[in-house]
């Protein structure tokens, strides 16, 4: 058997298998940990091989069960496999980090299984070619993240009641999203008789060309905006994010902010540019409008935060707005920018959340006003947070700068002057709130030890520091030399704007 052909499914099914195995292996925690790390690392490896394969020899299609478009197909195009690489990388690091960060009992009982299913959910979403299957994986994502948010962390700074409250809000809002997704998918099936996205694309285009596209297809398309917007937390669907991301254990916050919200952006890119490309004219202005409001709301609210993780969460809201701004502009260059932005934010923000975990570990609180002068006691966390903060703020020479630059350049070339202006204004906000956070935590008077108790004296273990350093290195490298990322993104953008190769790959050989 040729294992390379099976890479797409292996990326999804292996974590599911592992999750099952982890439940069976509960009594052997060390073995569990080792196995999980090995599997995560090999998933990363596999995803990279898949990406290279796709890059070299075009879109890969995998027919689950060999049923062609009548079953479910996995499609690894550059966007999908690229996202898988991103998520695999971040999840490997988050997993390593977790081993020291998550409280032992929680870690040895459910954590590994939940985490594996989260990974499976991500990879499944990124690779599926079937719209209903995407719903299923969305549910996996939803419930696995809920389960992980309430996992206990060492040191337990976050009240369990806060976790519950956040999870409840998250769940309620996302269930509504899921329901709407079902409504949309069912209506789509009822109208064109298929669930395969490539097939949908062909049929809707044909209807559009013939001028017989029913009007409610537009509404269905807009429903998907709610569905994916909900995942991505764009205004006014962002409300759950500032509650959930801070209360989750830090490695999970990193996964949520780093990868999970990108699922929404991915969904928009995939579904809108493949299936609803004929409705884009209607969708794009709406996306831009919502994106701008999102940018503003996130940035302004971030300024007023005193909880470091909540600030980071609001920052994620604001930053995802920039990603959607690029999507809304919709030119090849803007999409490139959006993807570059997405990747940079993913890496920098997950790094920041991991760092904030270290900081909280050190300070014993999430309240920045109760921290101060930690640059002396936690110099590594200080420089790591600074690198992340600068990248998010879009300052050179870090990845975030390249991202902002490309995005603004795209906005300029696309003559989106007002969005550009707003984007710029809130970029200054970003500098302000990121640096304010850094200053509050690391500069100033060292915290009065009588009042709050001393900072934790024990150092952070390599399990915690190494993932952060690796991500920081990535942020730096992306700032100094982004060419591969930009080239990849622009290739992805081209694939998005011309879905014909995708369609051919999926349907061309579909004979049984």
């Amino acid at each position, binding site marked *: 058997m040729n294992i390379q052909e099976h890479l797409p499914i292996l990326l999804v099914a292996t974590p599911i298998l592992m999750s099952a195995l982890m439940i069976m292996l509960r009594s052997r925690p060390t073995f569990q940990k080792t196995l999980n790390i090995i599997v995560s690392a090999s998933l990363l490896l596999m995803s990279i091989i898949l990406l290279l394969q796709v890059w070299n020899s075009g879109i890969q299609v995998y027919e689950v069960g060999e049923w062609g478009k009548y079953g479910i197909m996995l499609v690894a195009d550059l966007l999908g496999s690229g996202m898988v690489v991103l998520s695999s990388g971040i999840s490997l690091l988050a997993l390593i980090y977790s081993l020291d960060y998550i409280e032992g009992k929680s870690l040895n009982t459910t954590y590994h299984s939940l985490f594996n299913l989260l990974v499976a959910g991500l990879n499944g979403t990124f690779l599926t070619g079937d719209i209903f299957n995407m719903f299923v994986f969305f549910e996996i994502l939803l419930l696995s993240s809920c389960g992980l948010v309430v996992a206990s962390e060492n040191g337990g700074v976050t009240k369990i*009641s*806060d976790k*519950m*409250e956040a999870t*409840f809000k998250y769940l309620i809002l996302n269930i509504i999203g899921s329901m709407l997704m*079902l409504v949309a998918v*069912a209506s789509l099936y009822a109208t064109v008789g298929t669930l395969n996205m490539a097939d949908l694309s062909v049929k809707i285009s044909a209807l559009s060309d013939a001028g017989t596209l029913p009007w409610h297809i537009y509404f269905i398309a807009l429903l998907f905006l709610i569905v994916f917007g909900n995942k991505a937390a764009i205004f006014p669907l962002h409300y759950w994010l500032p509650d959930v991301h801070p209360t989750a254990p830090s490695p999970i916050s990193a996964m949520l902010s780093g990868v999970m919200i990108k699922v929404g952006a991915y969904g928009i890119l995939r579904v809108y540019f493949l299936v609803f490309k004929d409705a884009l004219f209607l969708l794009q202005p709406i996306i831009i409008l919502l994106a701008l409001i999102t940018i503003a709301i996130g940035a302004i*609210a971030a300024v007023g935060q005193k909880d470091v993780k909540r600030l980071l969460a609001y920052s994620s809201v604001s930053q995802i707005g920039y990603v959607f701004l690029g999507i809304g502009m919709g030119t090849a260059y803007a999409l490139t920018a959006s993807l570059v932005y997405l990747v940079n934010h993913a890496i920098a923000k997950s790094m920041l959340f991991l760092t904030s975990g270290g900081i909280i570990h050190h300070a014993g609180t999430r309240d920045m006003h109760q921290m101060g002068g930690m640059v002396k006691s936690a110099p590594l966390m200080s420089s790591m947070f600074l690198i992340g903060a600068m990248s998010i703020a879009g300052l050179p020479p870090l990845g975030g700068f390249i991202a902002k630059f490309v995005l603004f350049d795209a906005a300029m070339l696309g003559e989106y002057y007002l969005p550009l202006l707003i984007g710029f204004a809130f970029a200054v906000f970003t500098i302000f709130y990121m640096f304010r956070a850094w200053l509050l935590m690391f500069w100033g008077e060292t915290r009065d030890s009588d009042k709050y108790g001393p900072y934790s004296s024990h150092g952070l273990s390599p399990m915690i520091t190494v993932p952060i350093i690796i991500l920081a290195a990535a942020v730096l490298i992306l700032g100094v030399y982004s060419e591969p990322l930009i080239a990849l993104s622009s290739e992805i953008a081209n694939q998005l704007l011309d879905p014909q190769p995708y369609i051919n790959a999926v349907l061309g050989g579909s004979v049984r």
Partner: protein
Amino acid sequence: MNNTILSITIALIFGIGTFLMLRRDIVKVIIGLSLISHAVNLLIVSTGVFDGEKAPIISNGHHDSSSGIIFTDKLSDGIFAPIVPSGMEVHFVDPLVQALVLTAIVISLATTAFILILAYRIHEEYGTTDIRKLRRLRG
């Protein structure tokens, strides 16, 4: 079944569920969610595309009685869908939507279970079922 009346019913239940979801009592909210999921399940079934009169279970015959049409829907030939032989009559209702609903039902069972237990724990932590009291996370 008449589509119009079914659609109206689905919409009404959806609306009632929505109304419940806007209540303050956490259990009521969850009941609302369950109602909506009923509505959605019905909705999916109602989008089934055939109006057959038999359940999609092939009762007659052995495993080799049905020929099994090999569909040739090659895109390169400009064919987008299974070619239905002329005169082919569908006696069955649409099986696909049923399968989809089954999946949706199970998933909503899982979600409901989780959110109910969550409600219980929230009551334990907050001492109330009033979701307006769930406002520690704000700002």
